C-alpha cells in the first residue's frame, strides 16, 4: 500500500512543483509520481539525519508519545490508512465528535518546551503567548470564531476532516515523506518502526493525556482507530509530515508568523490544535505553538494581508504588531465579519470543506479536477498547506471555475437593462486562479489590477481596449501583518525580487523566481525551521505563505538593503542611519489666517495628540510661523519659555540658530505645550496681510535637511512675497464656461524644485490649505505632489461661519497627527518579465523606471500604475507583481513591506473581459484623464473618457459577442462602466458647464491621484440607501449589534421619494436626506425631532437614541465608517432646504443643467459606435 500512497503523494508534489511554470494542469499528475519521487527521495535521505537529531530528543520530553512518534511514520500505517475507508471513518467522526474546545488545547501542554526554541534562542513560549493575546487582534480570537459562526457544525466537520487529512498526510507521507511535504522528505520516518508500536502508542497516549487529547484530537482518534496515537504522537507524523504541513511558526524564532494552518483551517483552532500537537509537541513547548496558535486564531480569510503579526514574532515584534494597525480592540472582529468574512468567507470556506470532505461533502467547484485522482486529491488536501509554490496547480483549478466567467460574460444590453447595481457595494472580482493561489493572493484592498486576467500580448490588450494597470495601497493600516526578522532576506539574485508565495521550489535547495525565472539557491538559514528544528521546509516559511509580509531589516543589513533597492546611485542620504521621527509645523499667521481662526483649533488638536505622534524617544518637533517675515521658535530644554526669533530677510533666508529649533519632543514637551497655548493669542492682533510662503518653505527645508522628516504647512492665502510669489490666475466669470479650463498646471516651478530638493533630503511636505480666496492650489500643490506629501483643502474655512469645515478640519487633524508614518521610503514595483511599467500616478518622485522615491509614506495614500506588455507572456501562465516598500518606521527601524499579487495570463479576449475589474478600470482612467487634462486640455480628457466607453463597447461587439443584438451590449462584468464614466464626467475634477472654482477642481484632481480605490469610488459614484424601511433581512450580526444591509439604489431622483429617508455615502460625507412626507416615526426615532418642520436646518449629528430604529441606523453608519481612515461627516438635509442642491448634484444618472442623463449618455455612445 505504501507504494501507491507514495506515488500519489509524490505525484501531487510533482504537480506542485512543475505546475507553476506550466500553469500546471492535470497532466502533471500523471507524470508526477515516478520522477518526483525519485528526486525527492535523495534529499530526504540527506536531510533525514539531521532533522531527526533535532527533533527527536525534543519529542520525548514534550509528550509521552514520543516513542510512538517514530512508529507513526510507518509506511504500514499509511497503508492501513488507505485501506480502511476514510469516508466511513470520517463520517463517524463527524457524527460522533462534537468538537471540543479548540482553544483549550494549548493549556494541556504546559510542559516547558523541551525543544530549544528555534534560532532566536529560548523564547519564553508562554510569555510570548500572553503578549500575543494581549494584542488587540489576538485578544478577540474567541469572539472571532464564536460570533462568526461559520456554520459551526460544518466547521467541526471540516476541522475534523482537516485533521484527518492532515494526519493522514502525516501518516502516509511520513513514511513516504513525499506526499505531505513533497519538498521535505523529512527525516523522521526512517526510524519509524511499525504499526504495532503505533497501536501501543495510541493507547499510551490515551492514557496519558486522556482528557486533553481526546478532546482536541477527537476527530483524528476516531478516524484512525489505530491512529489515535497518531494524533497525539502526531509529533511523529508531525515530524515527518507536520513540519511540511504547518511548519513555519516562528521563523528564526524571532518573529515569523505562521498562518498556514489557518488558511486552510480557518475554521477552527481545533484543527490547529491537532496540528500543533502533531507538530511534535511544539504546543507544549509553548513558543512555537503559541505563536502558531495565535496566528490561527486571528487568521481571517487567510488571504488578506492580515495575518497575525505578533503571532509570528513573539518577543521582539510584539509591539510592532501593534504598530501595524492602530485599531481599537473591538475592530478586528467586526472587520473580520464584515469585510473579510463576507467576501472571503464565501470562497474560502466552501473550498476547504469540500477539499476536506471526502465523504459526505459534495465536491465543490474547486475539486473537480482532482476527482479523477481519487486518492491523489485526497492527499493534496491532506497536505496541510499545499506548497504554495506548487499551487500553480491553480491552473488546473481554472477549468473548474467557469461559472464565474460565464456570469461575468453574460451580455447585457444597457439600453434595456435598467437596474444594474448589485444590492451591495461591488466587490473586487476574483482572479481566476486555483483556490490555493487565491487563498494566498494579496488582498484586493492593497493591490488591485484592472484586468484580473492578464492578456498574453500587447496586441490582445489593444484589442480589448481596456487599460492595464495596478492600483496600490501599499502602506494601508493592516490589522494583521506577518513581521519577519531574519538575517538574510531571501531575494532573487538577478531581479532582486523578494521570495513570495508564488515562487517555485525546484527542490529543497533551489527556488525559481516567478518574475524573471532565474533559479536561486535557498540559503541555509531559510531551510531551517526553528520551530521543528528541522530542515527542508522552505516553502513553509511565512514569506512563502503570505502575499503580504514585512521584513525588519537588521541594522547591518539595512544600509545594504537600501543600496540594493536604489541600485546604483546611493547618495549620501542613502547611507545614513535611520532617521528619528521629525515633525515641523509651518503655520500661516497673517491677518487672513487669524481671521479664519484655524490656529487655535490646530494648537488644541496638536496638544491633544502630542503623545500620539508616532515616534520614539528621539522624536523631534519644531515650529515656524510666517506672515511677511518668518518666525522661528527656540524650544531648547531649560528655557523658561519659548523664544521667538524673527527673520525678516526673506530674500535670503537663513536659520538663526542651529540646534535649538528642532527639539526633542520628550525633553521639551513643556515648552512645546507652552508655545501651543500661547500661539493663538500671540498673533491675534496681526495686521499683516502679506504671505511669504516660499521663503518660509525654504527655511523649513534648511531646518529639516539634516534629518529629513515631515513638514506640515498651513496656508490660508495666495503667497505674495519673496520666492514663489503667485498671482491670481482665475477669472471667476470663466468658471462655468465650456471653453476649457485654463491654469490647471503650475504657474511656476519654484514649488516643484523645492519639492524635489525636499525629496532628496527625505523631507515630505503636507499641505493644509484653508482659504476662502483663490490660492492657486495648482502651483502650491506641487510642493506636496513631488515630495510624497498629502494635500488637504478646506474651501471657505471659517471657524464661525463654516462649522462643517471646522469639524472636518478637526477630524482630519486627529487622524493626520496620529496616523502611522514611514520615513525615507522608496517603493519598487517589479513585475513578471514581459510586463513593464508605463506611468505612475500619485504623489512621489519617480527615481527610475520602477522606483518611486517617497520621502514620507502615510497609510492613506494610494498609487496607480499603468502597465504595458512588452513581450508576449505566452511562456508563463501566471503574471506576478510585487511592490516592495522600504521605509524607516517612526521607531527608527528599517522595514520592508512586500506585497505580491499573482494573476493568470489568458489568450482569449473573452477571458480578458471576464476578468475586468470595472472599478479599478474607472479609477485608472480617471488618473489618466487628469494627466491628460493638465498636459492637454480638459475637453480632451473628457472626450478620451467617452471614447474609452465607445471603444470598449465596439471592441466587445466586434470581437466577442456573437449576438446580432442591436443596442449597446457589454459583458456583465463591465455593465457599470458607462455609469461610472458618466459619474466621472460629472465629478468636480472633470465637469464642465457648472460653476467650479479652480482650486476645488484642482483639489479634486489631487484626490483622484492619491485616494485609495474604495474611497475614490464612493466619491465618484456614491452609495445610496433607503433608511426608513430597512428590514433585518440579510443583516449582518456583529458582536451584539445588528447591522442592516439596505439595498443600493441607482443614483437617480426617481428613486428618491418624498416619504422616505435616504442615506448617501459620498466617502468623506454622509448625507441623510429627509423627505417632506417622511413618516414622523422615523424622524422621531432617529433624529429625535417631533416632525419634519422641527428638524433644525444644519443638523450634523444623529442623536444617540435608544429606539431600535435609531440603533439600526447608527449601526449601519458605524459599519460604513469602520474601515475609513478619516471619519466622515454627517449632514442631514431637509427636502426643502437650499442645501438640497448638494444632495441632488450626486444623482449622476439624471440630467443636470449642463450634462446629459445616463440614458442620453448611452445613446451618445451608441451613436459614436455606429460612426
Amino acid at each position, binding site marked *: 500500500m505504501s507504494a501507491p500512497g507514495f506515488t500519489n503523494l509524490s505525484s501531487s508534489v510533482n504537480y506542485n512543483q512543475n505546475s507553476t511554470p506550466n500553469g500546471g494542469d492535470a497532466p502533471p499528475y500523471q507524470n508526477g509520481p515516478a520522477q518526483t519521487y525519485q528526486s525527492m527521495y535523495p534529499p530526504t535521505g540527506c536531510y533525514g539525519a539531521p532533522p531527526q537529531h533535532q527533533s527527536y530528543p525534543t519529542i520525548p520530553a514534550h509528550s509521552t508519545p514520543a516513542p510512538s512518534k517514530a512508529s507513526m511514520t510507518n509506511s504500514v500505517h499509511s497503508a492501513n490508512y488507505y485501506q480502511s475507508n476514510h469516508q466511513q471513518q470520517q463520517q463517524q467522526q463527524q457524527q460522533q465528535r462534537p468538537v471540543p474546545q479548540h482553544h483549550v488545547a494549548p493549556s494541556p501542554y504546559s510542559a516547558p518546551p523541551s525543544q530549544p526554541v528555534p534560532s532566536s534562542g529560548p523564547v519564553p513560549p508562554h510569555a510570548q503567548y500572553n503578549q500575543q493575546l494581549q494584542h488587540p487582534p489576538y485578544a478577540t480570537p474567541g469572539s472571532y470564531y464564536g460570533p462568526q459562526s461559520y456554520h459551526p457544525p460544518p466547521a467541526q466537520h471540516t476541522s475534523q476532516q482537516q485533521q484527518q487529512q492532515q494526519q493522514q498526510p502525516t501518516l502516509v507521507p511520513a513514511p513516504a515523506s513525499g506526499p505531505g511535504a513533497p519538498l521535505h522528505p523529512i527525516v523522521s520516518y526512517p526510524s519509524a518502526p511499525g504499526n504495532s508500536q503505533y497501536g501501543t502508542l495510541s493507547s499510551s497516549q490515551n492514557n496519558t493525556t486522556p482528557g486533553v487529547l481526546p478532546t482536541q484530537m477527537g476527530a483524528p482518534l476516531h478516524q484512525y482507530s489505530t491512529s489515535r496515537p497518531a494524533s497525539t504522537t502526531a509529533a511523529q507524523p508531525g515530524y515527518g509530515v507536520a513540519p511540511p504541513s504547518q511548519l513555519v511558526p516562528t521563523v528564526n524564532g524571532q518573529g515569523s508568523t505562521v498562518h498556514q494552518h489557518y488558511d486552510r483551517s480557518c475554521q477552527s483552532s481545533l484543527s490547529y490544535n491537532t496540528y500543533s500537537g502533531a507538530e511534535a509537541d511544539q504546543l507544549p513547548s509553548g513558543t512555537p505553538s503559541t505563536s502558531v496558535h495565535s496566528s490561527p486564531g486571528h487568521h481571517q480569510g487567510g488571504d488578506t494581508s492580515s495575518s497575525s503579526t505578533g503571532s509570528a514574532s513573539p518577543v521582539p515584534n510584539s509591539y510592532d504588531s501593534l504598530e501595524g494597525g492602530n485599531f481599537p480592540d473591538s475592530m478586528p472582529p467586526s472587520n473580520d465579519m464584515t469585510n473579510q468574512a463576507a467576501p472571503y468567507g464565501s470562497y474560502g470556506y466552501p473550498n476547504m470543506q469540500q477539499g476536506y470532505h471526502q465523504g459526505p461533502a459534495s465536491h465543490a467547484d474547486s475539486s473537480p479536477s482532482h476527482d479523477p485522482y481519487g486518492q491523489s486529491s485526497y492527499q493534496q488536501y491532506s497536505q496541510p498547506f499545499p506548497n504554495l509554490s506548487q499551487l500553480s496547480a491553480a491552473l488546473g483549478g481554472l477549468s473548474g471555475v467557469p461559472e464565474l466567467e460565464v456570469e461575468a460574460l453574460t451580455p447585457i444590453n444597457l439600453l434595456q437593462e435598467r437596474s444594474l447595481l448589485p444590492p451591495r457595494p461591488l466587490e473586487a472580482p476574483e482572479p481566476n486562479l486555483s483556490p490555493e493561489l487565491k487563498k494566498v493572493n494579496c488582498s484586493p484592498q492593497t493591490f488591485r489590477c484592472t484586468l484580473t486576467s492578464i492578456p498574453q500580448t500587447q496586441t490582445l490588450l489593444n484589442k480589448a481596449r481596456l487599460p492595464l494597470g495596478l492600483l496600490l495601497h501599499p502602506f494601508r493600516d493592516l490589522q494583521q501583518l506577518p513581521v519577519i526578522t531574519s538575517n538574510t532576506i531571501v531575494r532573487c539574485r538577478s531581479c532582486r525580487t523578494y521570495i513570495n508565495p508564488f515562487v517555485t521550489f525546484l527542490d529543497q535547495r533551489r527556488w525559481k523566481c516567478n518574475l524573471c525565472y532565474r533559479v536561486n539557491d535557498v540559503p541555509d538559514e531559510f531551510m531551517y525551521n526553528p520551530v521543528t528544528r528541522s530542515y527542508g521546509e522552505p516553502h513553509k516559511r511565512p514569506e512563502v505563505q503570505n502575499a503580504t509580509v514585512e521584513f525588519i531589516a537588521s541594522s547591518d543589513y539595512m544600509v545594504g538593503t537600501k543600496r540594493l533597492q536604489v541600485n546604483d*546611485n546611493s547618495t549620501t542620504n542613502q547611507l545614513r542611519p535611520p532617521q528619528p521621527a521629525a515633525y515641523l509645523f509651518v503655520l500661516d499667521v497673517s491677518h487672513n489666517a487669524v481671521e479664519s481662526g484655524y490656529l487655535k483649533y490646530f494648537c488644541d488638536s496638536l496638544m491633544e495628540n502630542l503623545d500620539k505622534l508616532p515616534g520614539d524617544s528621539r522624536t523631534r518637533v519644531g515650529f515656524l510661523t510666517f506672515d511677511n517675515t518668518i518666525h522661528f521658535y527656540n524650544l531648547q530644554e531649560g528655557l523658561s519659555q519659548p523664544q521667538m526669533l524673527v527673520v525678516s530677510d526673506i530674500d535670503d533666508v537663513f536659520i538663526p540658530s542651529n540646534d535649538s529649533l528642532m527639539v526633542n519632543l520628550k525633553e521639551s514637551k513643556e515648552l512645546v505645550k507652552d508655545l501651543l497655548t500661547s500661539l493663538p493669542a500671540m498673533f491675534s492682533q496681526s495686521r499683516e496681510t502679506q504671505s511669504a510662503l516660499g521663503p518660509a518653505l525654504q527655511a523649513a527645508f534648511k531646518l529639516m535637511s539634516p534629518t529629513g522628516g515631515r513638514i506640515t504647512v498651513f496656508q490660508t492665502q495666495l503667497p505674495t512675497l519673496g520666492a514663489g510669489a503667485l498671482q491670481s490666475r482665475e477669472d471667476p466669470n470663466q468658471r462655468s464656461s465650456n471653453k476649457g479650463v485654463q491654469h490647471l*498646471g503650475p504657474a*511656476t516651478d519654484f514649488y*516643484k524644485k523645492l519639492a524635489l530638493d525636499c525629496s*532628496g533630503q527625505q523631507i515630505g511636505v503636507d499641505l493644509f490649505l484653508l482659504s476662502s480666496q483663490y490660492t492657486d492650489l495648482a502651483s502650491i500643490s506641487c510642493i506636496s505632489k513631488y515630495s510624497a506629501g498629502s494635500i488637504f483643502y478646506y474651501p471657505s474655512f471659517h471657524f464661525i461661519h463654516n462649522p462643517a469645515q471646522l469639524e472636518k478640519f478637526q477630524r482630519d487633524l486627529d487622524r493626520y497627527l496620529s496616523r502611522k508614518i514611514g520615513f525615507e521610503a522608496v517603493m519598487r514595483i517589479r513585475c513578471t518579465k514581459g510586463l513593464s*511599467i508605463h506611468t505612475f500616478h500619485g504623489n512621489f*518622485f519617480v527615481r*527610475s*523606471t520602477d522606483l518611486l522615491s517617497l520621502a514620507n509614506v502615510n497609510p492613506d495614500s494610494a498609487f496607480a500604475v499603468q502597465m*504595458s506588455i512588452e513581450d508576449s507572456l505566452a511562456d508563463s501562465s501566471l503574471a506576478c507583481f510585487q511592490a516592495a516598500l522600504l521605509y524607516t518606521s517612526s521607531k527608527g527601524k528599517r522595514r520592508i513591506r512586500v506585497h505580491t499579487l499573482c494573476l493568470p495570463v489568458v489568450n482569449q479576449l473573452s477571458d480578458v473581459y471576464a476578468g475586468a475589474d470595472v472599478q479599478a478600470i474607472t479609477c485608472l482612467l480617471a488618473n489618466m484623464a487628469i494627466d491628460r487634462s493638465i498636459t492637454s486640455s480638459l475637453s480632451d480628457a473628457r472626450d478620451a473618457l467617452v471614447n474609452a466607453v465607445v471603444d470598449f463597447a465596439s471592441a466587445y461587439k466586434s470581437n466577442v459577442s456573437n449576438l446580432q443584438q442591436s443596442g449597446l451590449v457589454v459583458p456583465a462584468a463591465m455593465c457599470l462602466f458607462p455609469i461610472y464614466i458618466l459619474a466621472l464626467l460629472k465629478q468636480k475634477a472633470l465637469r464642465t458647464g457648472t460653476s467650479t472654482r479652480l482650486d476645488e477642481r484642482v483639489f479634486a484632481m489631487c484626490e483622484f491621484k492619491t485616494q485609495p480605490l474604495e474611497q475614490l469610488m464612493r466619491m465618484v459614484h456614491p452609495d445610496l440607501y433607503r433608511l426608513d424601511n430597512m428590514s433585518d433581512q440579510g443583516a449582518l450580526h456583529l458582536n451584539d449589534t445588528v447591522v442592516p444591509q439596505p439595498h443600493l439604489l441607482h443614483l437617480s431622483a426617481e428613486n428618491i421619494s418624498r416619504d422616505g429617508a435616504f442615506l448617501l455615502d459620498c466617502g468623506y460625507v454622509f448625507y441623510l436626506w429627509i423627505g417632506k412626507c417622511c413618516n414622523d416615526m422615523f424622524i422621531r426615532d432617529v433624529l429625535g425631532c417631533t416632525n419634519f418642520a422641527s428638524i433644525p436646518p444644519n443638523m450634523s449629528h444623529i442623536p444617540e437614541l435608544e429606539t431600535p430604529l435609531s440603533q439600526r441606523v447608527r449601526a449601519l453608519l458605524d459599519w460604513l465608517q469602520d474601515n475609513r481612515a478619516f471619519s466622515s461627516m454627517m449632514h442631514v438635509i431637509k427636502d426643502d432646504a437650499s442645501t438640497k442642491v448638494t444632495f441632488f448634484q450626486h444623482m449622476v444618472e439624471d440630467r443636470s443643467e449642463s450634462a446629459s442623463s445616463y440614458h442620453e449618455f448611452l445613446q451618445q455612445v451608441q451613436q459614436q459606435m455606429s460612426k
Partner: protein
Amino acid sequence: MAFTFAAFCYMLALLLTAALIFFAIWHIIAFDELKTDYKNPIDQCNTLNPLVLPEYLIHFFFCVMFFCAAEWLTLCLNLPLLAYHVWRYMSRPVMSCPGLYDPTTIMNADILAFCQKEGWCKLAFYLLSFFYYLYG
C-alpha cells in the same frame, strides 16, 4: 569650387554638424542610462538641460549662415528642423531655467520613448547632413 563664402559656410556647417552629432549621441546615451536606471533623473536633467539651447543655437546659427550665403536648397532642408526646435521649445514644461526636460515627467514611458526616438532621428539627420555638407 573656389573658396567662396558659401564654401566657408559649408565647412563651418560641417564642423558644427560634427559637434551636433556628438550632442545627439550624448542625448541618446543619457536617455538610455535613464531607462536602465543608471542615473537619477534629477541629475540627468541637470546635465541635459544646459545642452539644449546651445544645440538649438548652433543649428540656428548655420541656418542663418546658409541664408546669408543664399544656399536656398540647404536652407530648405534645414528649415523643418529649425521649425521643430522652435515648436519644441515653445511647448516645454513650466521651468525657470533653460532646457526642456523636467525630472518629474521624464520617467514617463511615453516621454522617455519620445525623447529617445527624437535623439535617434536627430542623429540620423545630422549624419546625413554631415555627408551632404562634406560633398556639397
